[in-house]
């Protein structure tokens, strides 16, 4: 169904309310776009905010497609009512909007004339509203469609016909007191006989507090004191609106006209003045005071609804809320440095968790995670290559060399085979980089091919670590290799066999062999250390 048509369509006899199939039959070349009432409403509000800044602060939307402005006492600023309407019409036309403008002494009258009068713009002088409405159809009175239809059936097609009608008889004809009352109310409002309350659009509350100083401040202490004052005022305003701030900005304007902005983010909405003060105070110390500060403004840049929390009498164990701590740490060290662990549904060990900024809120780990096969508390970002002596085709390492030190394995458990998650590549069609962020394959084209051993045991040498020789007890300055650079997709998706091994001193490691000897077309399997149990 057509909801709105342009001038060219009207010339083709198309009208709102017509079915799309019918409209296409009338005009096969019709261009249509889906209606989006929400966007229309937003655009109308945008227009209203523009008009409120330019013409009159008292205004609101009128139906779905109109705006009313109360211009009482304003036209002389533009040089008269006609000049005001001409200015408005010209600006709207320049913005590509087709507008019908009318100026009348009542809201109902202006509504009727702007929509149903033959010409535009029209100015109805005071006292002439009755005569102007006389020839207009009754739909112009802002009536319900059924009531307007009923009026037409009664033969009352023009507003002028209602003027001299006895009011009591109208009610009798309608058989409904409410409907008759509605007609009379709208008629009286249009003619100015009855008052019509106007509900102007309220400006959105802005959470900004300003503090000008007659004499410029020259010390940081003064700025902090001013900040304290501003924070209390802002938080009072936020409390009245039931809002909490997530991002706060402080403008410090200096006497020479330059200014500095300091911003701070919060992990949870808050309206605690001391907390805001604490977040901004450190940064205030660093600002350049120049010739002195003569204006400070504190603004809530991002607010969220914050319902007052119930204070409790029980369970006061002396623990404070963690959000202020998180905010302080993040604002000093950066969002990337302060993080929390979030679970992720994946069997690949390095994909089973995600480190995200603590601003993302608390995480929820599944209860049964503790009962899975043991995992190390520390995991290397990229698995470290090992040189391993192990039984082939399958078996735990008998000994391994890691960071230039060879250890003998006395106990081992495994394998725990973890196969690539082939469904991920199917499901989302993502690239293989997303599939394995750190494909644990050695740099430089995989392991060195070694001749087949005699006894069924052979060493599988991965590339050694490019780090200086470090013995046990030496200063550890390891730079782990950057595997994965030369990894192809087939190598990244090889199955892994994980083993939990313990060396002769009782240290436990989590190692895996990537690839299988049975399927060695992608290169021989190689061994990696993925984590240390301790």
């Amino acid at each position, binding site marked *: 169904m057509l909801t709105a048509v342009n001038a060219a369509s009207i010339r083709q006899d198309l009208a709102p309310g017509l079915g799309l199939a019918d409209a296409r039959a009338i005009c096969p070349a019709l261009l249509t776009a889906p209606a989006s009432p929400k966007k229309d409403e937003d655009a109308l509000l945008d227009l209203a905010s523009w008009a409120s800044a330019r013409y009159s602060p008292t205004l609101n939307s009128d139906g779905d497609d109109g705006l009313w402005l109360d211009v009482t006492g304003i036209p002389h600023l533009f040089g008269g009512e006609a000049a005001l309407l001409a200015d408005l019409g010209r600006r709207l036309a320049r913005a590509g909007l087709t507008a019908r403008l009318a100026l009348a002494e009542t809201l109902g009258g202006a509504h009727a004339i702007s929509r149903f009068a033959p010409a535009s713009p029209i100015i109805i002088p005071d006292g002439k509203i009755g005569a102007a409405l006389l020839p207009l159809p009754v739909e112009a009175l802002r009536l319900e469609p059924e009531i307007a239809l009923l009026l037409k059936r009664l033969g009352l097609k023009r507003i002028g016909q209602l003027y001299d009608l006895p009011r009591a008889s109208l009610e009798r004809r309608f058989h409904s007191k409410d409907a008759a009352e509605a007609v009379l109310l709208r008629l009286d409002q249009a003619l100015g006989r009855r008052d019509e309350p106007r509900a102007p659009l309220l400006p959105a509350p802005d959470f900004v507090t300003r503090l000008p100083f007659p004499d410029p401040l020259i010390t940081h202490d003064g700025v902090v004191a001013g900040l304290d004052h501003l924070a209390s005022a802002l938080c009072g305003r936020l409390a009245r609106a039931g809002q909490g701030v997530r991002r706060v900005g402080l403008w410090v304007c200096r006497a020479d006209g330059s200014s500095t902005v300091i911003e701070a983010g919060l992990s949870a909405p808050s309206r605690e003045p001391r907390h805001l003060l604490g977040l901004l105070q450190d940064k205030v110390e660093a600002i350049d005071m120049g010739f002195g500060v003569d204006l400070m403004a504190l603004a809530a840049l991002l607010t969220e609804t914050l319902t007052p929390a119930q204070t409790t009498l029980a369970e006061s164990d*002396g623990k*404070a809320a963690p959000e202020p*701590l998180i905010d302080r740490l993040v604002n000093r060290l950066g969002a990337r440095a302060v993080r929390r662990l979030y679970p992720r549904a994946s069997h690949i060990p390095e994909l089973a968790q995600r480190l995200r900024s603590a601003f993302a809120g608390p995480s929820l*780990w599944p209860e049964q995670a503790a009962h899975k096969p043991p995992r190390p*508390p520390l995991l290397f970002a990229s698995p470290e290559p090992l040189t391993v002596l192990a039984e082939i085709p399958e078996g735990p390492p008998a000994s391994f060399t890691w960071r230039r030190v060879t250890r003998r394995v006395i106990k081992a458990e495994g394998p725990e085979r973890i196969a690539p998650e082939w469904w991920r590549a199917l499901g989302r069609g993502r690239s293989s980089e997303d599939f394995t962020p750190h494909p644990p394959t050695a740099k430089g084209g995989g392991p060195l091919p070694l001749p087949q051993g005699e006894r069924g045991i052979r060493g599988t040498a991965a590339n050694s670590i490019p780090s200086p020789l470090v013995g*046990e007890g030496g200063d550890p300055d390891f730079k782990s290799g950057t595997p994965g650079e030369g990894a192809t997709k087939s190598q990244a998706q090889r199955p892994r066999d994980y083993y939990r091994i313990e060396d002769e*001193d*009782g240290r436990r490691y989590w190692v895996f062999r990537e690839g299988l000897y049975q399927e060695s077309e992608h290169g021989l399997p190689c061994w990696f250390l993925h984590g240390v149990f301790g």
Partner: protein
Amino acid sequence: MSLGLPPVPGAAPPHPACSLPFVIAPLPGPPPGRGREFPLHRLKQGGLHEIKPASYRDGPAALAFALAVIAAEAARTKRRGLVLWCLTQDAAREWGRPYGPGLCALGLDPALVLIVEARTAQDAAWALEEGLKSRALIAALAQIEIKAQLTARRLGLAAQASRTPCLLVSRHQSSGLPGTLTRWRIATSRSGPAPFEAQAPGAPSWQLTLERCRDEAPGRSFIVEFSHESFRVRLSAASSDRAAEAGESGERRRAETG
């Protein structure tokens, strides 16, 4: 413990001096004397505790032990508050990053852990001090190399004032820091037999040496085990049999051998 009641086999009586869920393995025989009481419960006291690996490669063991202690403390406080884990980027590169499923295996809910990975040790120490002062923490874990004595004192005072245990895993070569309540040296020890598989590694066990503790004789050494079933650290059975000896003659022997 001097109740005169016969110990129930299989039951784990709580340590008399604490409500911490550290348990001592059941012992046959007479009530334990002074030497039996290994002050593991001191680790839950608010203050700075230094845990020092015996060698470079024992670093992860020190961390795992500290995490196990914190996990027990988190369970005791019914998981109200956060666990702050401060580390430097160097430490993360050296031993890896915190891994949630692995923390689950130690009994610590990863949702409680707030990780601060700072570029420098100074930043990490600042974050740690802020955390200790905030009173929002269950416990703090630090993987920082602290060189300035003043920093260590500040951390110790902040931890004591807010009654938050702060477990500092330091480097094996560094000398002891001032302001610590306790200092421990930890080395891995061969695990006991696994319940169902002879070849598999058993419960993680560590050899703990008490280096410094107020009101306690230093130098005593014990072997503790971590149980993956109950998420508790306890003295291993083999070690507790020798506990009386370690308490008295063990000290002397250690002093002789240096």
